[in-house]
């Protein structure tokens, strides 16, 4: 092997090795108790990884139940929020004169604190169902949905309107109908923008799900468990849920990237 090639493989290898070394160092410091000294905390507030792991192992059934609640809220909210957002974008792109202003308003919702939405939704759903399970689930999902609508509608609107020059004119010369134009041109053009939106809204949906759980009627979900355990000073258990929530975020994000790489395989994107 010659020098240049060695350089190339070292380049890609080092981007795994360096962070891995860093991660291992932190892990060892954490397990060895050095992190507690550095952060001035006792092993109660920051328990060692092995202890957190044993708690996760001992409470698998309970953790799974809470995990399921959070995942359903986050993903259902993400799905419907994104669909509604895309729908808004289609309408806005169809009537651009009015659409652009509507999109500006939608983007303003991005700036509304989630904490203000959660109690509102709780009140709203109280009259919809008498089942606590259902209505608190619905309230949480609605919050996640609203958080996801804005991101998707803003990005999808760009995907539906920022077309390559003359591509719309080309469609016109084929005398393509509105639906054909959408299917052959607008939809494929908007796909990269949809993924951009999802990359922002996926972590957003998980965060919103966790936060709305703080306010919801029923005590369930990863976020609620973190809070409940902190309030009762069960820090080790709280840490177990925090680790689970991180893993959830990472796994879902990696899944999204995988789907994106499959869908976008044949496009070269900058």
């Amino acid at each position, binding site marked *: 092997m010659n020098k240049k090639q060695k350089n190339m493989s070292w380049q890609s290898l080092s981007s795994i090795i360096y962070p891995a070394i860093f991660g291992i160092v932190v892990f060892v410091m954490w397990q060895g108790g050095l992190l507690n000294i550095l952060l001035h905390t006792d092993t109660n507030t920051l328990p060692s990884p092995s202890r957190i792991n044993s708690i996760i192992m001992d409470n698998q059934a309970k953790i799974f139940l809470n995990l399921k609640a959070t995942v359903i809220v986050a993903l259902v909210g993400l799905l419907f929020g994104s669909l509604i957002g895309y729908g808004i974008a289609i309408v806005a792109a169809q009537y651009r004169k009015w659409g652009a*202003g509507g999109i500006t308003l939608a983007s303003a919702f991005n700036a509304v*604190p989630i904490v203000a939405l959660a*109690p509102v939704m709780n009140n709203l759903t109280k*009259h919809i169902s008498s089942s606590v399970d259902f209505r608190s689930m619905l309230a949480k999902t609605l919050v996640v949905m609203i958080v996801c609508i804005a991101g998707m509608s803003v990005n999808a609107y760009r995907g539906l309107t920022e077309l390559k020059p003359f591509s719309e004119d080309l469609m016109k010369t084929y005398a393509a109908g509105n639906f054909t134009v959408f299917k052959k041109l607008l939809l494929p053009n908007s796909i990269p923008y949809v993924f951009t939106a999802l990359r922002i809204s996926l972590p957003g949906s998980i*965060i919103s799900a*966790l936060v709305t759980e703080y306010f919801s009627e029923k005590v369930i979900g990863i976020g609620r468990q*973190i809070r409940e355990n902190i309030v009762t000073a069960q820090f080790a258990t709280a840490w177990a849920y925090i680790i689970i929530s991180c893993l959830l975020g990472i796994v879902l994000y990696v899944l999204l990237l995988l789907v994106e790489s499959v869908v976008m395989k044949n496009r070269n994107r900058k």
Partner: protein
Amino acid sequence: MAQIKKKKNSSTMVTLLWTLAFFLIWELIAFWVESSASIRSPEKVLPHFWKIVAVAFDGKTINGTDTAIQLVWLNAKVTLIRSAQGFVIGASIGFLLAILMSLSQIIKKIAFPYLMIIQMIPILGMAPILLSFTGDIDSSRIIIAAILTFYPVATNTLAGMEAVEKEKHELMYSYAANKWQLYTKTLIPASIPYFFTGLKVSAPLAITASILVDTLQGGIGLGCLLSQSLKGAMTRYVFWLIVVISAAIGILSYLLMGLLEDAISSHKKAERACKR
């Protein structure tokens, strides 16, 4: 040229009309909620917007000393100051890290995957644990606001520096510019629009963070007041007033970043003036 100006005005008008439509829909739903027989306390579901405004300007005191708007504003001010502190700290750290990452491949390689992970970790969910770390609610509010600010600023600024064309680097190289000149004359100014993109994302986040941490413990702050009003300690309209005010602060913080960007980039102003 006059046409472009007209077009710009009309798009402002459209946004304005949409905002009006939003409030109209709000009022319609509020009427429906009010007249619905099955809903016993309509102000808990959705009160009329004008009633919220009326409470804000009502001269009556609600806790013996302050009127509603005085009380909310008092708490909002505290929340704003805390989130501003966290925001400034987070933005500075994010900016510095972006420069470090662009200076050193090793730092970039170490930090990048962890930055990705931080983005996926629900930081807001970690608010309680941070409180147990610091033991001090005030500093944990600031730290969380800083963490949330730091990530969008760092990644966007780095993206801005990496988006600088190869030719600009070659130009600086041909002038035999040193690292300091490369950064101060080319990379940092070029990354300013990206830096502001990061700030626009994180300004409302910093405020959300501060309000959320408030709800974990009593004291002063919009979040604390929110918890109290939910528990029925005062009229329900105070709760609605907080919702409206915090939404307004979030939106205003976003707009403020845009104004700030316009103020420091004189070329944008000149180009706009020319197009008119």
